[in-house]
Structures are given as structure tokens and as C-alpha cells.
């Protein structure tokens, strides 16, 4: 079923890797059982910082999921053949990322057993309602598309005609998932840090650089540890996409900084001060944010100079730098920075706890396990075709 049988045969190295992931998943599960019985009090969250690591991972991973469109769009809309071998890998990355997003939402809920209430009492005025629809729809779309196109590839036939409209639909749908996720934040009157129209475009730009950067790294890893080589050209084209998106992302961040600091409105300024220099003596995120800035500068340097970008090793460094920089920016700064200073002008601290970190790692491990299984199946199909 779903060609799953191909995922349960593999080399020793494959099984060691799967066992490591399973170990992390079990650790995360045990930590989550503790959270279920005690409550979210096991996390570092508080009255003032009510969302943290979980929601930040969710936000970051929605971007990774949306970025599949960066391979789907050139391949299917522009018939860009170079992406023929990576398109399905992008879609599978999207499936894994959306699954992680849903798990992160679930572990962040105070009453996870009541999650069905969102469906029982549909509330169109809540952006969370639309986020559920867009994420759920995106998951289903990509699952169908990936399965059908992989089956067609296995049987060496063209994918059935009915799947083309679904693929076309998945393109605007990918844009929608990250736009709606940005609206979760940018529509709140009492949170000046998030109250910016540039939030959704910025989300998309950072997604379209961090997602393809991850895809490049995954392709490079596959080249190392498997027989499969996606080839130089798709990686270089993805590198170009990372470059453009990263430039746009940094540009939008600078727009944000200009508006905030030239207008000088204290309520807006203070959040950036908290993140980059500290506010009222609280500077817990300052080293992180400057690391993010440093990595972004390094990434831009390596990406913008063609000589560096064309070098696979340097491109890999650029992709790692891009990914970590944007993970810090979205995974730490965006959420905590929106809560501090509080609407009452006070500062609060947030440090994730060990259990919270284990749960987070567990969800990531589950996502990586999905990617591993999906890529294993794909590679097995292609290996069978090659001989």
C-alpha cells in the first residue's frame, strides 16, 4: 500500500538513522505524556509570553511547506524540465512540513482532546479557522499529487490528466497557507510588532529562501549517502531562487526597520530594541538576533557572488546559513519579540524547558522520519527503473 514496502528494506546505515529518529520520537512522546497529565505548565511559557517554541516552529515550517511551490511552479507552469527530478521531492517535503505544523499546533493546545470543536463550531471570523482549512487542504492536495505522480513514474507512464488541475490549484494554495499564517499575527490590534502589512510578503520571501535551501541540502545529502544524484543544474537553479528570495526578504526587513525607527513610535520601536539591544535590562534574545543577522550577511555574500554560488561547497554553507538565520528570525524572534514588551509596557522572560525542547525535537524527528521514508520510496522506484 502506497509503496510503503519499499521503506522497510534498507542498508544498515538507513536503519541506524531511522532508529535514531525513532528514539527522539519516543523521548518526545514521553515528554508529551507528562505535558498531557500536568498541563502546559511544563513549558517555559507564561502569562505574558503565551506562545513560544511550538508556535514558532509551526510558523517556520508553514514556510518550508509553502516553498514547494518554487519547484512546482517552474516545472508545471513553465515546463522547466530541469526540475523534473526534484519536483516530487519538493512536494514530499511539503507533506512532511505540513504534518509537523499540525503536530506543533496540537502540542500547543491546552485541551487537545477538544480540537474537534474547531470543526463542530466553525468560526469564519477567526483566522485560525482559515488556517485549518488552508493547511488541511494543502496536505491533501500534495499527498494526492505526490502519490499519483510517483505511481505514474513507477509505471513509466504520464500522470493521469485529472491530476493537472490539482497541481495548478496547489500553486495559489501554497501562497495562501503562508499568507493566512501571517494574518494570524498581523491582524491583532494590541501587538504593534506584528501589526504590519509587510508580514505576509516577508513570510513568503523568507519561506522561498529557507525552503529551497533545505531542499538543496537534502539533495546534496542524498548525493552523498545514496546512488541518486539530482544533478548540478537543478541545485544551481534552486540556489538562484534562494538568492532572489533572500534578497527580497532582507529588503523587506529593512523596510520594516525604516518605518519603525524613522517614525519613532515607541510602541513599535521597543520590540526591535528588545530583540537587538535589550529593553529594560532584558536582552536574552540579543545574541540570537545578531547571529541571525551575521548569518544572513554571510549567506547573501556567498549567494550574490556567482563564483561562490557556483561552488557546491560554498553553496551548501550559504544554504545552512540561510536556513539557521531564518529559523532564528522566525522561530525565536518573531513570536517572543511580539509578546515582549507586553501590552502593559513590562518585559517578560521566556526560556524553553527541557521537556518542551524534547517535545519539539520529537516532532522534528517525526517530520524527518516522514521525509526519509518518502525519499526512500521515491529512490527505490527510480532505482528499479534505472535497471
Amino acid at each position, binding site marked *: 500500500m502506497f509503496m510503503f514496502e519499499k521503506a522497510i528494506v534498507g542498508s544498515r546505515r538507513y536503519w541506524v538513522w531511522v532508529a535514531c529518529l525513532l528514539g527522539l520520537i519516543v523521548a518526545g512522546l514521553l515528554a508529551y505524556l507528562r505535558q498531557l497529565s500536568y498541563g502546559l505548565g511544563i513549558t517555559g511559557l507564561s502569562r505574558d509570553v*503565551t506562545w513560544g517554541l511550538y508556535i514558532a516552529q509551526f510558523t517556520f515550517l508553514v514556510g518550508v511547506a509553502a516553498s514547494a511551490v518554487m519547484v512546482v511552479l517552474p516545472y508545471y507552469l513553465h515546463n522547466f524540465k530541469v526540475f523534473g527530478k526534484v519536483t516530487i521531492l519538493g512536494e514530499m517535503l511539503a507533506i512532511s512540513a505540513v504534518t509537523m505544523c499540525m503536530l506543533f499546533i496540537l502540542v500547543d*493546545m491546552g485541551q487537545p482532546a477538544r480540537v474537534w470543536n474547531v470543526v*463542530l463550531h466553525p468560526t469564519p471570523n477567526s483566522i485560525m479557522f482559515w488556517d485549518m482549512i488552508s493547511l488541511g487542504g494543502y496536505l491533501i492536495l500534495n499527498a494526492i499529487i505526490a502519490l499519483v505522480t510517483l505511481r505514474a513514474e513507477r509505471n513509466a507512464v504520464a500522470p493521469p490528466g485529472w491530476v493537472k488541475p490539482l497541481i495548478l490549484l496547489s500553486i495559489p494554495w501554497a501562497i495562501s497557507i503562508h499568507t493566512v499564517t501571517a494574518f494570524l499575527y498581523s491582524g491583532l490590534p494590541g501587538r504593534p510588532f506584528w501589526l504590519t502589512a509587510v508580514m505576509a510578503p516577508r513570510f513568503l520571501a523568507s519561506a522561498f529562501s529557507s525552503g529551497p535551501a533545505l531542499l538543496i541540502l537534502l539533495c546534496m545529502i542524498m548525493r552523498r549517502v545514496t546512488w541518486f544524484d539530482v544533478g548540478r543544474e537543478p541545485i544551481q537553479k534552486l540556489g538562484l531562487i534562494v538568492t532572489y528570495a533572500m534578497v527580497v526578504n532582507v529588503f523587506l526587513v529593512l523596510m520594516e526597520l525604516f518605518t519603525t525607527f524613522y517614525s519613532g513610535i515607541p510602541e513599535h520601536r521597543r520590540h526591535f530594541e528588545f530583540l537587538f539591544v535589550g529593553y529594560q535590562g532584558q536582552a536574552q534574545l540579543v545574541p540570537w538576533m545578531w547571529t541571525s543577522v551575521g548569518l544572513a550577511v554571510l549567506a547573501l555574500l556567498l549567494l550574490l557572488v556567482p563564483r561562490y554560488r557556483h561552488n557546491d561547497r560554498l553553496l551548501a554553507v550559504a544554504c545552512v546559513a540561510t536556513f539557521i538565520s531564518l529559523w532564528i528570525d522566525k522561530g525565536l524572534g518573531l513570536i517572543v519579540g511580539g509578546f515582549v514588551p507586553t501590552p*502593559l509596557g513590562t518585559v517578560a522572560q521566556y526560556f524553553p524547558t527541557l521537556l518542551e525542547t524534547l517535545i519539539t525535537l520529537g516532532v522534528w524527528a517525526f517530520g524527518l522520519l516522514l521525509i526519509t521514508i518518502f525519499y526512500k520510496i521515491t529512490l527505490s522506484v527510480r532505482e528499479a527503473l534505472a535497471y
Partner: protein
Amino acid sequence: MSMDRKTFLKLGGCGLAAAVAGNKLAGLVQIAGGQSAPGEKTLRASRWAMVIDTRKCQRADGCDACIRACHEAHNVPSIPDPRREIKWAWKDRFEHAFPELETSPLPGDVRERQVLLLCNHCANPPCVRVCPTRATWKRQSDGIVMMDWHRCIGCRYCVAACPYGSRSFNWFDPRPYIRNMHAEYPTRTRGVVEKCTFCEERLAEGRLPACVEACPEKALVFGDAADPNSEVSQLLREQFALRRKPELGTEPQVFYLL
């Protein structure tokens, strides 16, 4: 606990008398779907509002009768860790209540005043707008921002949306922290959000909110802002009143006299 014997007896007596009267006249409060069933004695209004006179509310002994009355009546736990506190009503510094006036010159002792804070029961509440399950909603009949903690999934979107910090989340089981359990009011479970409900369960029985009744200085005035003859409307016609963050368009229904 800072409560002298006299206040304790007074409060206890009031509570007991009220409980007995309540039981006799209206039976136990029936809270279903997050709200109490109205009866003959129910106090009604088109738009409930509160006026807080910060001048009267400045007793030298640091009076907190309103907060204690509220928290006792609603089984609000006393959690020592301020990061995990549950607060339906609390006092805070003037500049925290009105951060936009932080650098403005203010007359007299205004800046030193402690200000009573609670849910503003906004006419245009952002918390209600964002709730994905309608576990919090604006009651059309009287404008109270209601809360059904049996439906709440604990996503805390409303906490992020509230510009006033008026919502509390139960980070763990609150019951061990409740000092005097009142059987007639429900307790909450871990993982749900709660807040002030303008004592809708007392209004249903014909009683004023617990904080209003408990204030020894009569600094809290509660009434129908839509009725021009109510005391609330009269006060707001005669005196200049502040609302918290009016620029956000939430239209708070709690007014502060300076």
C-alpha cells in the same frame, strides 16, 4: 493573607447571606453553555459598563476588597508564581494601565495611583474575533464578553489578541490553589482560558458584581451605558473619563475617572 478579622467576618457573612438567599430564591446558579439562565430578578441592560473612580480607590491601607471578593466568588486560584497567575481583577501601576501616558505630565498624585484592571468588555473585542470555537463571544443582549471554558481548546489566541492582558490561562490544575471553594460556582480545569465576566451569574440573580458590592469606598459604579438615566451615564456626562488604549478601536466599557 492580609485580611483582618473584621473584614473576614464581614465578607464571610455577606457571602453566606448571599448564598442562602440565592439558594432560596433562585436555586443554585445553573451555568450551561457558559452562561446562567435568566430569571424574574435578573438585572438587565443593553450595554453593561463600569466606571472606576481612581480618586476614591486610593485607601492608605492598600485595600483590595474588590479583588478578594471577585476571586473568592469565582474560585480563582491564588497561584504564588506571578508568571502563572490567574487574575480576573488586579491592581497595577498607572503607567501600566495607561502606557501611552507614561511620559505625559500628570496632575497631583495621578501617576502614583494604583489602578484596578479587569476585562474591558469591549464593544468591539479582538479576543472574540479570533476565537476559533466561539468559546468566547459577545452577548448581544447586554454586551458582556462571555467565556465558555468547557468549549475552550486552550489555543491562547485570545490571550495574544487582548490588548489589556485581561485573560489568564490555566497552566496546570488550578484546584489545589483555591483557598475557599465555593460549590455554587464552577472551577476550571487545566488548559483553558478564563477572565472576568462582569459577574453575569450574579446579574442573573439580581445582584451587582461582587467587586462593586465589596468596595468600601463605592469607587466602582456599574450600570447600563445605553440608558441615559443610569448612574454610569450621568457620571460620564459630568466628568472626563479615560479608557484604556482607545486608539485601537476596541471600545472598552470600563471607564476611569481621574
